[in-house]
């Protein structure tokens, strides 16, 4: 079977299409990451909600202008201050420190306190200088002094979380793209969003193509009133602009009344099944997408079924006396598989992109991170020159969507029955 697949003409054409192969590898990478998130707890929802470092820490190894960095440092100092106060009262320091993103495991408390005092001293000196950007810009000895102090502050700061830590690499990755305004790791959030995007894309794709194919097949093959009904149904759904339909569905799921109803109906089994409130899961988003996206595949499959029904090999199957069921599933369906595959990949892209827009509109993913939420959150950052968050979300999404775009284009070429 495998051998035959590898020898098939479609596969050889695919293998020759290098961009498609590269795209598949990229997509596979994304899928593996999302599987690792789902099954291996690579990044948990808590991880991406957790505060790991100072707020608005720049990413990509870049540093903002001195005054902005100072602001960030000040936040940091305040944070440490508060922490130290708590530490004196609370025995569970280490836990708290880790929560704040400070790696204190490898240090005795006295040393930590010493380092912090040292840091405060440097920071205080820096805060007293007015017009710090202008002085640095002018250059000279004073600027030298400021910069050396800043470097020292940075060094100490870095010591809190990198020195002798076992997870140095992890930590570096965590901060590689900076933090958002709540001090959450942009990198972790962007990675976690992969899972959200893949889940939404995959489930929506399967559901929408599945519904569309079944209805399309029935309508196209049986004709008559079933066809009229399906045609009416998809014309109706298609006549409501996509985004309006999504909004209406979002409205339906808001407020938790649907949950309550479902839980009452199933004796609270529903809540256990999905593990929490309906609104907090991806289910409403997926339902809304599936309800809008089945139309395209349904229309295409119906049209193609109508065509195939009249094709000579289907007629030949009927001459053999094969049952409707056999004709439909053995002779028609396999010849629609390429359309299903192409539609699936198109819907996958559509769902990922719309998920972003929905999240942006505040109608999408409620808990955890998603690229849409990240871009949404970075609206005001951009005006302040903070591009890390929007950049990271865009880059992660771009890779996946581009790979899918290329792959679905290639599939259309490769699987076109005219060339098979």
């Amino acid at each position, binding site marked *: 079977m495998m051998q035959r697949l590898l020898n098939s003409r479609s596969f050889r054409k695919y293998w020759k299409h290098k961009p498609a192969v590269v795209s598949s590898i990229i997509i596979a990478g994304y899928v593996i990451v999302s599987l690792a998130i789902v099954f291996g707890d690579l990044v948990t929802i808590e991880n991406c909600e957790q505060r790991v470092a100072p707020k608005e820490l720049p990413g990509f190894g870049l540093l903002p202008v001195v005054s902005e960095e100072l602001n960030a440092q000040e936040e940091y100092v305040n944070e440490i201050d508060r922490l130290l106060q708590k530490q004196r009262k609370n025995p569970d320091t280490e836990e708290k420190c880790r929560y704040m993103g400070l790696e204190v495991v490898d240090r005795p408390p006295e040393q930590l306190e010493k380092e912090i005092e040292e840091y405060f001293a440097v920071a205080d000196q820096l805060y007293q200088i007015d017009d710090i950007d202008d002085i640095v810009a002018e250059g000279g000895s004073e600027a030298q002094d400021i910069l050396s102090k800043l470097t020292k502050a940075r060094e100490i700061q870095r010591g809190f979380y990198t020195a002798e830590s076992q997870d140095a690499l992890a930590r570096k990755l965590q901060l590689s793209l900076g933090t958002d305004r709540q001090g959450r790791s942009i990198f972790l959030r962007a990675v976690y969003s992969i899972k959200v995007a893949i889940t939404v894309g995959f489930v929506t794709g399967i559901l929408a193509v599945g519904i569309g194919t079944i209805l399309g097949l029935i309508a196209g093959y049986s004709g008559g009133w079933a066809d009229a009904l399906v045609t009416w149904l998809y014309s109706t759904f298609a006549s409501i602009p996509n985004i309006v339909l999504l909004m209406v569905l979002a409205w339906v799921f808001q407020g938790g009344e649907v949950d309550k109803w479902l839980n009452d109906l199933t004796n609270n089994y529903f809540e256990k099944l999905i593990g929490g409130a309906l609104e907090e899961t991806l289910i409403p988003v997926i339902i809304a997408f599936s309800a809008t996206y089945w139309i395209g595949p349904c229309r295409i499959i119906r049209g193609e079924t109508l065509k195939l029904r009249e094709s000579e090999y289907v007629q030949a199957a*009927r001459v053999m006396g094969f049952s409707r069921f056999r004709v439909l599933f053995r002779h028609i369906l396999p*010849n629609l*598989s390429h359309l299903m595959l192409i539609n699936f990949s198109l819907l996958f892209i559509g769902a990922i992109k719309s998920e972003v827009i929905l999240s942006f509109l505040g109608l999408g993913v409620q808990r955890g991170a998603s690229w849409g939420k990240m871009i949404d959150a970075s609206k005001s950052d951009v005006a302040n020159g903070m591009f890390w968050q929007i950049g990271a979300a865009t880059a992660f999404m771009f890779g996946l969507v581009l790979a899918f775009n290329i792959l679905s284009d290639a599939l259309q070429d490769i699987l076109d029955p005219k060339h098979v």
Partner: protein
Amino acid sequence: MSFVKAEDLVKHFPIRGGVFSRIVGAVHAVNGVSLQIEKGETLGVIGESGCGKSTLGKTIIRLLQPTAGSVWFDGTMTSALSHNDLMPFRRRMQFIFQDPYSSLNPRMTASQMLTEVIRFHDIVPVGERKKYVDELLETVQLRPEYRNRYPHEFSGGQRQRLNIARALAVKPEFIIADEPVSALDVSVQAQILNLLMDLREQFGLTMMFISHDLKVVEHFCDRMIVMYLGSVMERVSCDNIYEDVRHPYTKALLRSNPINDPDEQTELFILEGEVPSPRDPPPGCPFASRCELVEDACRSTQPELVTLGEGQQIACDPVVRKLREG
């Protein structure tokens, strides 16, 4: 009683139109055709595109439900049978399609396709299926090694062989071949015709051979019927077409067919005009608008098929009258 018989077979396809998509008319594809095929005989059906010859074949095999009339197969009226009751007849009659490219399921290999048929109709015991598939492939002169190939890996002629193998798989007694060679190149056409002739002899098949090519029908069939606009114009033996043919349409058809000899080429015979639309067939003789023998009566009354002896029938009043007058 004839082995296969059709009586007054009519097939109309409704045309929908107007504001409410009501049925506003019908394409009169087959208009009261009767035919008999004796066991072991090959009947040719000839006509130009749109004359209803394919529809006739599909109605006889019950791919299409006749609008009126009946089809009899080996003494049973098959046109009235339900899907289940028809099943035993499905394996006794088979159909070979015209287009070798679209008549094979592109996602099934040769052996999958044949095995499916064999399994469904339970032709041979489970253990012998593989052997039987190989035998079938050999019968149609395809190498058994090709069993795992997909249709696109075969040439046009090979695909047509596969089509024939599929039809033969159920060991049928009667085969309708709908233009089986018209999509093929001349040299391949000859291969397939030879194969069909061999098989006909080997299995004692009764056949109905539909074609637009007079030369092929003449070569391949025992008798033929000539169709024009859904009706039979003439029924004639293929033994000596040039002398036997009487109907002006058949004559025209015969003479517009190019002859493969530049030296014997006389002035081209031209049949003026075109076939009228089957949506709106003329009331009288369908051929009246192009006929050189046309009389006023032809335009208003449809001629009956008149027997001229020895299995020859003709639907043309002026010719019949002339013959009777001497």
